[in-house]
């Protein structure tokens, strides 16, 4: 009876841990996406010390998530005996996805470090050379989104977030270590999603917004006379856009 109870407890603990890892992976994905969105503004006219500070914060956050997830995931994998095949598959999948996420993050960090070197923002002249990309708003929305990522599962870490270059090398070594520690043939991992599935899943509420977005991108066609303005028909008037194209 006791043994049975213990094993049930164990199973439940494991399931919980796996769930936590999944959520951690989602958070990691969110953080990476936010970081990338912010990185696209570096070097542009939106760039500034504020942006860079926020990016550093996000980066530190990402670092915490990575280390936390790493800590959780490794023991799950190294204890081989106690998993059922399905669970094993799931954990392996998480492993592969985690590695992919780390690589993505590393790439973004590389780019970020390059961009910082190229646009140092030291003096006035440097500000002049920022590329005028046409962005006007800020990235505050993104920052808010990043801040809203839940990390309740993350035990409070007292670690210092590393310097940028250090961070990159750390991720590198982390990846290498992970590859060596557990040998999982990553081609055995299969996607749970079908191809083209994500298209069907998007909600309808945002459809109108997106359509107008597309229109704005397409309708940038200017008529042949010297006017600089875009099309002057009301929004959502596709017919109007067509006419605009032909004028």
């Amino acid at each position, binding site marked *: 009876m006791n043994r049975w109870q213990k094993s049930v407890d164990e199973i439940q603990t494991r399931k919980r841990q796996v769930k936590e890892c999944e959520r951690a992976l989602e958070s990691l994905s969110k953080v990476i996406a936010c970081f990338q969105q912010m990185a696209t503004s570096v070097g542009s006219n939106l760039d500034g010390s504020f942006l860079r500070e926020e990016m550093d914060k996000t980066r530190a956050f990402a670092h915490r998530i990575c280390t936390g997830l790493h800590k959780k995931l490794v023991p799950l994998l190294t204890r081989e005996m106690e998993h059922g095949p399905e669970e094993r598959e799931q954990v392996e999948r998480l492993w592969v*996805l985690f590695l992919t996420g780390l690589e993505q993050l590393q790439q973004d960090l590389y780019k970020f470090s390059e961009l910082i070197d190229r646009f140092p923002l030291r003096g006035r002249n440097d500000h002049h050379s920022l590329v005028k990309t046409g962005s006007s708003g800020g990235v505050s929305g993104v920052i808010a*989104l990043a801040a809203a990522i839940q990390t309740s599962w993350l035990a409070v870490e007292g670690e210092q977030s590393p310097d940028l270059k250090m961070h990159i090398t750390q991720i590198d070594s982390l990846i290498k270590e992970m590859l060596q520690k557990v040998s999982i043939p990553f081609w055995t991992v299969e996607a749970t999603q079908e191809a083209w599935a994500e298209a069907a899943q998007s909600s309808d509420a945002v459809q109108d917004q997106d359509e107008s977005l597309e229109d704005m991108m397409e309708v940038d066609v200017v008529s042949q006379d010297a006017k*600089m303005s875009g099309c002057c028909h009301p929004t959502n008037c596709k017919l109007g856009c067509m006419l605009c194209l032909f004028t």
Partner: protein
Amino acid sequence: MTIRNVRDHGQRYRPRMECLKKVEAVMLEMQDPKTGVKSQPQRLVITTIPHVITGEDIVTWLANRYSIEKEEACSLGTMLVAFGYIYPIQDHKRLVIKPDASLYRFQTPYFWPAQQWPVEDTDYAIYLAKRNIRKKGMLEMHEQEQYNSLHKWMNHKWDFIVMQAKEQYRAGKERKKPDRVVFDCQERAYWVVHRPPPGTISAMDYGLERMVDPNTEEKQTSDYFRRIIIFTQQSIMRPRVKSSVSIGALVKYSITYYKHDPFLTPCLPSNSWVTDDVTFWMLNMTNVETPTKMRVERWTFSFGELLSDPRGRADFRLFLKKEFSGENLAFWEACEDLKWGTAATMNEKAQQIYKTFLARGAPRWINIDGKTMEVTVKSLKHPHRYVLDAAQTHIFMLMKKDSYGRYLKSPVFKDTQKRAIDPNPHRFSVTQLEANARKRRPSLSPIIVRQQEEEERARMATSGPVDITQLCRFTAPVPHLAVYSGPLSSPPFPICLPHTPACPSPISVTIDSTPSDRRWEDGGGAGEREAVDQEGRGMAVSSRSRVALSLGRLLRRGCNPSTVFASLSPKCPAPAGTSSRVQPISTDQTIQAPPRSIANFFQIKVDIPPECRIYPIDSEDEEESGGASKGIGGEGETEGQVKEIICPWECLTPHQGAG
């Protein structure tokens, strides 16, 4: 995770991307609020987006800044667009600068092309997934294809890709509307440059990746200076040509080849790289029956052009065949084969070539001047790849000055010219182009192509001689040599003669083509055989038995039959080297006289049926009567003549093992 190439130590420096650093400097200059390009806000329906520039402004700025003409500024601007530093807002798939009011915008540095790393497929997959979400599955044709293939190859990380796509999409929505538009335009432009849709020409086509970063400043060590010194010393020593002469040559070349350059004149029917239609390649294949008019025109430019085109060479070969001077081309091809062949076969090839073309009394003797012949034969003692260069050049010039001119006026060429096809240019619509792109298929594997080439060569080798110079009616090669093995037990003769792919067909043809050696007498009667005497005019032996007899005599003279005949077999080069001998041209051997008889003797061609054999048969010994001793005794002087063809360098080298 990504499959990392083990050999990739992060060294992915792409040589043509060296200019990126300079382009970035230009871009930064353009941003200057005072001296840079003027930008305006773009007014859209619900909002205004700043920082849009016109093509005209860009071109004018470039022309002013660098003091160049408008056309050059245009092409510079197009380069900026093709690299992805500026993107067009209208007509986003065509990466060119239009010097009018068309609108452009600067690309954000995050999306600038980077030299250090190529663009990852993972990112492209995320982008496609994002686009899929936004457009609900309505992707373009090429995007759909890419999506499917990426889904297959990246299946193991597909979940992450989708997750990331959703998150990026959500993060993007957090920005204000105009920024979203700008960001989407930027991203779209980025992928148009790096994964161009069919029909778009981007500048991301680079060559091989290099191990060393060409952009790094080289440290000025003593090694660096030493290299500069050597380079300048060599430059001083270089021979010079007047610039009028060299420029004249360049101009002449450009004029001649203008219409044949696919960059300057459109290919007929269409450039396969651009339209994905392979008609052009099919029409210009190596062994096509009717060549195109352009191809035939190229043959008239120079002799080198004619020879380097396999179809042209085939035509020329046909012409020479009719003129009975095919040995020159055969020799030239044999030399090429020697030059480009494997090192292992070089010795044998050199010997074969010597025996077939250069030796006195060789079957396909070529006519080169004495000095060249001397030099060549001497250096053949130590054969190497370029040992026949002088002779080959001589023959090349001979053909060029003599045969080439006649070829161009010959009916063969005129016929080819008349039959040459002139295809009409294709005019594909956009949908047709897309259909072509979808129908792309890989061509034949190179393994299969090589097999076909070898079969072709085998067919050519067995199809008979190129030159039809003999009076002898037996001109077809006889493949079976076991007949000649005679009664002696000898090392087994390879009956199935392997065709050496390395040896080109000219060598395999052992038909005598030298008029001087024409000693065949067609199936003369027994009486004529009397003529064979010490002067040794060759006799045709008309009966197999006689040949067998004479062979017997030969055998008893101590010649190892298999090696004799094997050595003379065109298809068996391996034992050829063992003991085949041509009388050396050097005066080591005193038995040079009578030259004619010897010359006749050396016409031993195994492939000819016995009736045509010439053997230095003593007229007295026609009827075999066991006069072995007589044979041996009488032939004292011709003993040496009975020797096999000696390659002169063989004197110095020991016997190789029997093949």
